[in-house]
């Protein structure tokens, strides 16, 4: 009897162990199931590179190039802001900060990671957006730049914590060797620690960027939601994620628009899958 009970429990454990694979597969399958239907009316090339997104006009124009460029622009801006600051902060926490400050700083970073994106979006709307508007004398502060700045804050906790881990796991002997040869602390960091931790830092940056591409609420609230090919970083844009979030509520289940939004979901899924697999390879290379 006990044998049977344990047998059942162990099978149940194995089943749950496989659950993650099952769910990833399910997500992909259901995206495909709903999303691929759009390609009966639009060919994949026109979908990816079509220059206009007018999903509810007659006939509907379903080109997601403006959305892809919107996502790219906002992500690029966020990367330019968050990578130097994030890696700099990681070096500071790992190497320079005294132990007590270090703990406080780490708690602060965790705090930032915990703030819900809708709260960051709200704060961006009431503080950053008016600021951008008045500094650049724009008709509206809802721009790609505002989105980039806010998203940079969402990428930073990821970048800082993973890069800090990478620096921490550089063998102590490397550092001691460099210092013993008469290098200053900074020379050691710059010439020894950073190169030794480079694959981990690269993974940190990639995961941070992955977070930015997938971010939805804050972006929808502060980038202005204009689904046109962006002309400058000071113009409103619309990202892939925001398009799904903003339009799915109105799309009729089973309509072309509904299928198209799922196809956008496929694009996002594939991007995040590629980023995560690559980052994982970098993280494992180190060990």
């Amino acid at each position, binding site marked *: 009897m006990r044998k049977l009970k344990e047998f059942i429990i162990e099978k149940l454990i194995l089943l749950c162990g496989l*659950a*993650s694979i099952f769910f990833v597969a399910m997500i992909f399958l259901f995206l495909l199931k709903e999303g691929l239907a759009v390609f009966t009316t639009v060919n994949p090339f026109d979908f990816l590179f079509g220059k206009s997104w007018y999903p509810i006009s007659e006939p509907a124009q379903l080109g997601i190039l403006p959305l892809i460029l919107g996502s790219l622009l906002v992500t690029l801006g966020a990367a330019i802001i968050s990578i130097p600051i994030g890696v700099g*902060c990681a070096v500071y926490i790992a190497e320079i900060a005294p132990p007590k400050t270090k703990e406080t700083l780490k708690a602060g970073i965790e*705090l*930032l990671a915990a703030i819900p994106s*809708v*709260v960051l979006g709200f704060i961006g709307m009431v503080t950053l957006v008016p600021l951008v508007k008045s500094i650049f004398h724009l008709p509206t502060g809802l721009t790609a730049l505002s989105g980039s700045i806010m998203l940079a804050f969402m990428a930073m906790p990821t970048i800082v914590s993973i890069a800090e881990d990478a620096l921490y796991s550089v063998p102590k002997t490397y550092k001691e060797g460099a210092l013993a040869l008469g290098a200053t602390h900074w020379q050691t960091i*710059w010439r020894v620690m950073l190169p030794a931790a480079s694959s981990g830092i690269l993974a940190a940056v990639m995961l941070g960027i992955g977070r930015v591409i997938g971010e939805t609420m804050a972006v929808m609230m502060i980038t202005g939601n204009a689904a046109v090919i962006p002309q400058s970083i000071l113009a409103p844009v619309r990202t892939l994620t925001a398009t799904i979030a903003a339009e*799915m509520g109105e799309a009729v289940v089973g309509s072309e628009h509904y299928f198209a939004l799922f196809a956008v979901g496929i694009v996002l899924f594939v991007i995040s899958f590629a980023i995560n697999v690559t980052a994982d390879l970098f993280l494992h290379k180190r060990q």
Partner: protein
Amino acid sequence: MKNPYRTQKIAFFFLLVATLLIVIPVGLIVVIIIQKGIPAINWQFLSDMPRQGMRAGGIFPAIIGTIYLVTGAIIFALPIGLLAAIYLSEYSKDNMLTRIIKLAIVNLAGVPSVVYGLFGLALFVVFFKFGASIISGSLTLGIMILPVIITTSREALESVPYSFREVSLSLGASKWQTIRHIVLPNAIPGILTGTILGLGRAAGETAPILFTVAAFYLPRLPESIFDQAMALPYHLYVISTQVPNVDEKVRYGTALVLLALVLFMNLVAIIIRYKFRKKKKW
């Protein structure tokens, strides 16, 4: 020749600036929300229905909706996540399958939240015909927090020393008895930390519930798990972008309640982790 010590000073200065550029805005965000949100918080705000198209009254149904959603998510995710963690820490061998499972977890953690929303819509709302309901949202959020629970629980299980297991096994206990009576009790604080972090994550997410639960304006409490519900993060989104002329106080108040809820959970998790580390006997 450059003076290396001066270079170091300059470099360290910039590293400090980078750190401050993160820490100061975070502090400001929290302070602004608390400062402007506090005046809105009173018993009526927390316990009353929204009135006048959400421009007045309270946020009670949104709070209740979020509690239902988060509870549902954890009921679904905790057993699966915990058993998956047990599999990874106690049963899995170092082989291809384990590698794929780990990769799947990493990917599950990286899937954009709005894609979870799409998935929930396609599977629970449309395919299973649950409609936009608490159960659809809870299941969607549950799958989303699964990686958090698996990763933290696994760390907790793996940190239980191997000798504990060996002693138990050598006394004739079976593998499952060892896990059930020796490994699990010692890992509980870690598992609890993971669970609470998962709860906090589920409470704050908006995108996954946009199309699976969310009721724009529903000034009553949900009657069953197949009912729609309001939720705090969605409510904040709605009153800050969809409804014109909402009193600023109401917005900040809602943001404060949501932020306080999420940060409170994180704080509890941090405290449990800290106490556990201090008490650790090995």
